[in-house]
């Protein structure tokens, strides 16, 4: 359980601040990244989750399922539009998710499909996953990337600032079957609410 952290990469990160900056520069292709490193440094937390090593499990314990975190940064797409696709594949098996994304007409669908396939490959190679289909999407969400600003010319000498939007996409695959979410009917929810109201006690009463 857990993945062995690649030693060479880690030592390069911690050795010198200059090495860290160049590493960041190689990750993000923007010129701005050389000056503002805070945004990219915070974003690397997701990849660090792959490096946590758990202590060996006791003989009686149930097997801890493998977790694979993967992401892609600075995708040229809107985070709001990407959210819809991320919401679509939440809780699906990886094969089902890949199928849905393949036949979606959205631009982000192609990108998310690439990310999922990369994550699947990583799972089989590095994270000791036996069957590549035995994965499901536990978490999937999008975040705001760094925006480029441009001038949009309106009439009568006015102008507006146009944002060239970018987004990040994060996904967490877990080994095994997806947990079954019990679908509560509206009537059941209403009954529960009424029961909660009935269970209230009146304080300071006789």
């Amino acid at each position, binding site marked *: 359980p857990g993945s062995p952290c690649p030693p060479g990469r880690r030592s390069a990160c911690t050795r010198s601040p200059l090495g860290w900056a160049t590493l960041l520069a190689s990750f993000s292709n923007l010129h701005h990244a050389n000056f503002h490193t805070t945004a990219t440094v915070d974003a690397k937390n997701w990849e660090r989750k792959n490096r946590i090593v758990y202590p060996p499990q006791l003989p009686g314990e149930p097997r801890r399922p493998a977790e694979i975190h993967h992401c892609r940064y600075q995708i040229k797409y809107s985070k709001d539009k990407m959210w*819809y696709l991320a919401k679509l594949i939440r809780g699906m098996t990886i094969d089902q998710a890949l*199928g849905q994304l393949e036949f979606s007409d959205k631009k982000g669908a192609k990108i998310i499909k690439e990310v999922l396939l990369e994550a699947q490959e990583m799972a089989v190679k590095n994270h000791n996953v036996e069957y590549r289909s035995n994965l499901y999407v536990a978490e999937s969400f999008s975040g705001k990337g760094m925006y480029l600003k441009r001038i949009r010319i309106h009439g009568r000498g006015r102008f507006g600032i146009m944002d060239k939007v970018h987004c990040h996409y994060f996904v967490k695959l877990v080994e095994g079957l997806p947990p079954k979410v019990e679908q509560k009917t509206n009537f059941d929810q209403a009954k529960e609410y009424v029961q909660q109201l009935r269970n209230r006690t009146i304080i300071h009463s006789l």
Partner: protein
Amino acid sequence: MKISSFIGFLRRSLMHLEYRIAQAASLDRQFAPALAVQGPSLLKPSQSESDECGQSTLLDSILWMAAPKKRRTIEVNRCRRRNEHKLIPVKNNIVPCPECGHLKQKHILCGFCYERVHRETALIRGQIQAMEGGPLKNPAVETVVLYESCRASSVNRDAKTSLSSAPSSSSCIPRPA
């Protein structure tokens, strides 16, 4: 503030009406000679009026435009954006293709199989082009496409032009069973 602007608007509209009537009565004050007494005295106010007209009508229209009363909170925005009808529906018509095993939609041809057929026909067309050698040179006889595997078939080669699908440059395409 609104009443005064409305009165101003009425005043300006009356002036405009008067001007139009004068024009209809063929009293072209715009083109009147400078010596005429009435010309400049009437031109100036109309000019100033027209200048004011341009700016105040713009301001008026801004006052009468619709504008939001309050900022929409993120909770309200989320309710609208994440409503059921705005989410992407899950497709239930994705099936594996019986020929190649890739996924396809029920009512649409398999993309992989189509691409394979497209490439094969492109090769055949290339061969035909090479054999013909130019445009509008197709022979008057039927063209038969022969694969390498069926060269020894009992097709009469003299009557029809035939071409094999395995030229020396490209690889041999296995005939779909």
